[in-house]
């Protein structure tokens, strides 16, 4: 008994049009996969680092929230930006990541914190980093330099975090008299909407004497956040660089 003759293999792509179409499908599949991957990764990093400052309006203060959030959040966009830019000359990694993050956060807030845990959405709304991401990406295109992007983009990252988010919390900084105690609406939300595991004293807000240097620590917070964001951006470009080098494959496996 003899085996049937095997058909000769044909190339899957036989024309430039087919190749272009295949490349577009590849782009689409990768984009969708990266969207979900970045949603998960960036969201987990946010929960683990920024945590309560992003969860509750009565944590969104002018000192820690405004300084801590930009500093820790610029790390992942920096690393991914290096990979996207050095390998593909694509300047949208930071915008893409911040969009993924905001999508993940809204899903979490609506389904989890509102749907399951009953917190009103106006108490658990997330901050947005999208303008910060736009500034990083566009600065990279305009300067064509990681160093200048770190300096200008890093500072804009922190300034825009304040400009885009402070107006949101401002709605909740109206003063209220609660049985003889002055509170902001955000404080009152924290008091009304019961968190059994997050008592008032756990909040880390505006503590210290930073007001000594002026009436409000906002501008110091932003300047500090901007400066440190520059440094963190450069550091995490290095992490991105490691991920593009074959000699560090052992580290990536680790």
């Amino acid at each position, binding site marked *: 008994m003899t085996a049937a003759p095997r058909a000769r293999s044909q190339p899957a792509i036989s024309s430039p049009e087919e190749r272009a179409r295949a*490349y*577009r499908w*590849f*782009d689409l599949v990768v*984009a969708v996969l990266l969207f979900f991957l970045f949603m998960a990764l960036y969201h987990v990093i946010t929960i683990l680092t920024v945590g309560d400052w992003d969860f509750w309006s009565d944590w*969104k203060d002018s000192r820690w929230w405004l300084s801590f959030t930009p500093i820790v959040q610029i790390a992942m966009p920096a690393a991914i930006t290096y990979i996207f830019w050095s390998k*593909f*000359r*694509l*300047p949208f990694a930071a915008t893409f990541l*911040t*969009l993924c993050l*905001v999508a993940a956060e809204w899903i979490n807030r609506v389904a989890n914190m509102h749907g399951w*845990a*009953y*917190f*009103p959405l*106006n108490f658990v*709304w997330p901050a*947005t980093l999208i*303008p910060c991401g*736009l*500034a990083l*990406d*566009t600065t990279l*295109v*305009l300067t064509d330099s990681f160093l200048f992007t770190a300096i200008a983009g890093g500072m804009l990252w922190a300034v*825009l975090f304040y*400009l*885009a988010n*402070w*107006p*949101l919390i*401002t*709605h909740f*900084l*109206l003063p*209220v008299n*609660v*049985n*003889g*105690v*002055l*509170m*902001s*609406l955000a*404080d*009152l939300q924290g*008091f*009304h*909407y*019961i968190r*059994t*595991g997050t*008592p*008032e*004293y*756990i909040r880390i807000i*505006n*503590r210290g004497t930073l007001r000594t240097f002026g009436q409000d620590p906002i501008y110091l917070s932003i300047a500090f956040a901007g400066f440190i964001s520059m440094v963190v951006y450069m550091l995490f470009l290095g992490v991105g660089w490691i991920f593009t080098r074959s000699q560090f494959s052992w580290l990536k496996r680790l």
Partner: protein
Amino acid sequence: MSVRLKIVTIAVLPLLFVLRLPTGALAHGERAQEPSLRLSTIQWYDTKWSTDHVAVNGELTVTGRFHIMENWPLEIASPAGLTFLNVGVPGPVFIRTATSINGVNGVSSMSLALGQDYEYRIVLKGRVPGRYHVHPMLDVRDTGPILGPGKWVSIAGDPAAFRDPIVTLTGQHLDLSRYGLGAIVGWHVVWIAIALLWLGYWLRKPLLMPRYEAVVAGEGDRLITRTDRIAAAVILAITLIVAVGETAYTSMVFPVTVPLQSNQTMVPGLDLPPAHITVRAEQVRYLVPGRTVQFRLRVTNQGSKPIRFGEFTTANLRFLNNAVVAPELDYPPELIAPAGLVVEPDEPIAPGETEEVYVEATSTVWETDRLTALMSDPTNRIGGLFMFYTPDHERSLVEFSSAIVPAFTQQARSSG
């Protein structure tokens, strides 16, 4: 059994197991807290719930007192540091509209003194229909929550009808449960739209493979065109204009704001008359077979009226001497030991006299509330409050704290 059948069985069995479990949490894990935390820290008493049925927007008031043990365990951080009067409920199914401790507003964290009694008041408002276990609770920094007694309370009605009306000091009337959400969502949508504009500009082009090939071929710099730079400049300009405009507009609409507030207050204890009673433990042991705590006490009445044992309370459990005190009808029955408190001799102790008294507190709750897990603790101590009554029903509270020794045989009972 075929492989397919095995796979189906493995998949379905856990599902069936999950489905047969109760769907709701029954309480707050108060029994999970280690015994020393419940027996020797805060003793809650006189707890009252104004009702056990409220409508959405209806009010529930929880009142009562607690005693902070003077003999507070050294290994546990105490409320002399920082504490916050909280409510043990499953999240914001109620909202908390007011709290106070000894008349001091409880919106902020407090510092309380050891050995003192405090009177609290918690006002709640029904929000999400359901049946919930409602406890007063003290969150103690570096220790965690210490729960008071719990009672089941039902909320009925339409959750959509819930309102949380507030008047600000700037004269604005608003509903705090919904206020400001439109602006937050609106600005998020604006930023998402700008981001999609920028991403759309790049996603319409071939992305990964052609660009990677160009970069590898050393032509990466040609991939960023003059049009790309103009697009970037336009997007950056839009970003800055929208961000600055957003801030300027909001500052104009809200000229008066205050920063987040944080306050910490010291609250003095209640000014209660001194008890004039001393209780010294001769021996305290837990009889494991009988689920009984046996006390041999030496009680001295230094007051001017005869006294009798009325109640022993610890870890939110009440042992009542039925000859002296009757339980409140609306108090959660599961927190009152049916066998009560056995006192021998159950006679009044005259002023100036010292008596040796045998007291027995028997209940299955020692086991079911996992208080006997104490035996596996490194510190075997029991604490609580003894309540004495005069013939005209004046009450005196005496803090009690002692080492406790388990007895594992029935013989130990008879020899006790």
